[in-house]
C-alpha cells in the first residue's frame, strides 16, 4: 500500500522546508483571510455588533474632540483677558504715561495702554448712552486707566493673580480689576468636562470589552462541535484561539470605521450653529473633524480593545469545551 510508504513522499515531491517564522506568518495570513470570509456569513448580526461598538467609541471620541478644542478656545479667551489698573486721582498724565511705560517693559506684560481720564469719559459717553447725565457733571468722575495685557507665559489664573497683587502694592495705583472669577469658572468647567469625558471613555471602553467578549462567547458556543473535533485532532490552544482573536480584530476595525463616519457626520451637523456661536463672541473658531493622528488613535484603540476583549474571553471559554 503506497499511502503509508513514507520514503517516496519525503524525497520526491516534498517542497523546501519552511522556517518556523515563515510558517507562522502563513498561518496567520490564512486565519486572517478565513475569519474575514466568516464575517460575511452572518453580515447582519455582525453589523449590529459593529454599530454597538462604534457608538461606544464615537461618544467619548466626540467629547474628547470637543474638549480639546474647547481648551484651545479657553486659552484664547484667557489671552484676551485684560487687567484694568485705575490710577489714583492725584497722578498726573506725565506720571501716568511713565508708569505705563515701565509696566510695558516688564517681561510678564505684553502691552500696557494708557487711557487718560478725559479719554475714558469720552469712551464712556459714547458707549453708555448716558451723555446728558454725564454732561451735567462738573468734574470728571473717572480715573485715568492703564489696560494691561499679560504675556503668554503668565496667562494662568495664578500668574495673573500674582501680577495683580504686585500692581496693587504700587502707591500711584488706586485699584486693580481682574475678572478672576470668570477665569476660575472657565478653568473649573473645563476640568470637570475633562474628568467627565475620561470617566465616560473608561466606562465605554469597558463596554467595548464586554460586547466583544460576549460576541466571542456566542461564536465559540456556535462552533462548539468544530472546537471539540479540533481538540481531539490535536489542535493547540493557540491554534483554536487565533480565529477568534482575528474576529475581534476585524470587529474593532469595522467599528472604528463606522465611529469615524459618525464623527464626520456629527461635526458636519454641529458646524453651522457652533460657527454662529463663535462669531457672536468675535471668534473665528471652527469645530475641526478628527485629524489623521486622531483617526489613527481611534483605529488603534478600537482594534486593541476588541482584541483584548476577545482574548480575555476566548481562553476561558475554550477551557470549558473539553472532549468527553
Amino acid at each position, binding site marked *: *500500500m503506497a*499511502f*503509508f*510508504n*513514507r520514503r517516496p*513522499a519525503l524525497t520526491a*515531491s*516534498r*517542497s523546501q522546508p*519552511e522556517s518556523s517564522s515563515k*510558517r507562522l506568518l*502563513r*498561518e496567520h495570513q490564512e486565519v486572517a483571510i478565513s475569519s474575514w470570509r466568516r464575517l460575511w456569513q452572518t453580515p447582519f448580526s455582525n453589523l449590529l455588533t459593529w454599530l454597538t461598538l462604534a457608538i461606544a467609541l464615537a461618544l467619548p471620541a466626540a467629547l474628547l474632540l470637543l474638549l480639546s478644542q474647547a481648551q484651545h478656545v479657553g486659552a484664547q479667551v484667557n489671552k484676551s483677558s485684560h487687567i484694568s489698573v485705575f490710577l489714583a486721582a492725584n497722578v498726573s498724565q506725565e506720571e501716568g504715561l511713565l508708569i505705563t511705560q515701565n509696566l510695558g517693559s516688564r517681561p510678564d506684560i505684553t502691552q500696557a495702554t494708557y487711557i487718560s481720564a478725559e479719554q475714558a469719559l469720552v469712551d464712556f459717553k459714547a458707549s453708555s448712552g448716558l451723555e446728558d447725565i454725564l454732561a451735567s457733571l462738573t468734574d470728571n468722575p473717572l480715573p485715568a486707566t492703564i489696560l494691561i495685557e499679560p504675556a503668554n507665559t503668565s496667562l494662568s489664573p495664578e500668574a495673573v493673580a500674582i501680577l495683580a497683587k504686585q500692581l496693587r502694592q504700587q502707591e500711584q495705583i488706586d485699584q486693580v480689576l481682574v475678572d478672576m472669577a470668570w477665569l476660575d469658572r472657565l478653568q473649573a468647567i473645563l476640568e470637570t468636562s475633562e474628568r467627565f469625558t475620561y470617566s465616560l471613555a473608561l466606562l465605554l471602553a469597558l463596554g467595548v470589552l464586554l460586547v466583544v467578549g460576549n460576541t466571542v462567547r456566542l461564536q465559540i458556543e456556535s462552533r462548539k*462541535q*468544530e472546537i*471539540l*473535533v*479540533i*481538540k*481531539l*485532532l*490535536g*489542535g*493547540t*490552544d493557540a*491554534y483554536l484561539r487565533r480565529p477568534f482573536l482575528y474576529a475581534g480584530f476585524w470587529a474593532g476595525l469595522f467599528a472604528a470605521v463606522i465611529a469615524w463616519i459618525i464623527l464626520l457626520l456629527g461635526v458636519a451637523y454641529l458646524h453651522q450653529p457652533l460657527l454662529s456661536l463663535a462669531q457672536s463672541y468675535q471668534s473665528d473658531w471652527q469645530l475641526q473633524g478628527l485629524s489623521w493622528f486622531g483617526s489613527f488613535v481611534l483605529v488603534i484603540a478600537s482594534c486593541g480593545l476588541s482584541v483584548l476583549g476577545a482574548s480575555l474571553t476566548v481562553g476561558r471559554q475554550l477551557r470549558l469545551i*473539553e*472532549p*468527553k
Partner: protein
Amino acid sequence: MINFEQVSKQYHDKSALVNANFHLQRGDMAFLTGHSGAGKSTLLKLIMLMERPTSGKVIVDRQDLSQLNRAEVPAHRRKIGLVFQNHQLLMDYSIFDNVALPLKISGYNERDSGRRVRAALDKVGLLDKEKLSPQVLSSGEQQRIGIARAIVNKPKLILADEPTGNLDPALSAEIMHLFQQFNQVGVTVLIASHDLELIQRLPHPVIQLNQGLISAPLSMRGQ
C-alpha cells in the same frame, strides 16, 4: 506501542477500569471488546488523554502519558489517528476540508496538504467527492471520510471507537478490511467494537473487557 500497567480509573463511586494490564506491540492490530459500559471508551480516552488514570501507568509510543502536561496534550493527539463511531465530520466543511483539518492543525502548506488529502481520499475510494458536503454521503461513506481524516497525517497508531457501529455487515467488513490494509504497512491499530461476529472472523488478538476488568488478555488466535 501501547502499554497499560496496573491502570485503574474511578468515576465517583464507579470503577470504569480496574488494574488493567496489556501491551500492544508496534505494528500489531487488536480488537477491544466487551458490552457497553465495560470500559472500552475509558481505555481509549486514557490513550487520547481525554482522561487521566486514577492509578497506574499508560505508555504510548515510549512516552509515559503522566509526564505530559496540558500544553503537551495536542502534540500527543496529533500522533494518533482517531476514528469515531459517529464519524464526527463537520457538516459545514467540504469533504476535502474535513480530511485536511489534521494537516491544517499541523501547519502544512496548501500544496503538501492537497496532495496528502487526495491520497487519503483515494485510499478510501472517495476521491471524486472532495468538493461535496459530508451531508450528501451515505453513512458508510461518511465513515470512510472519517478514516481518511484519521490517516491523512500518516500516524503510527490508529484508534477506532466502534467504527462499524452504524453500518450493515457488508460495509462493516469493508471498513475492517481498510484497517487491515493500514496494519499491513506497519501502522498499529486498536479497534473498540462489540461486533463479535465480525471480530471472530478476523485473525487479530482480542482484549475482552468485563466491568472494568480485562477478562481475556490478548488471545493470539490465528496468529
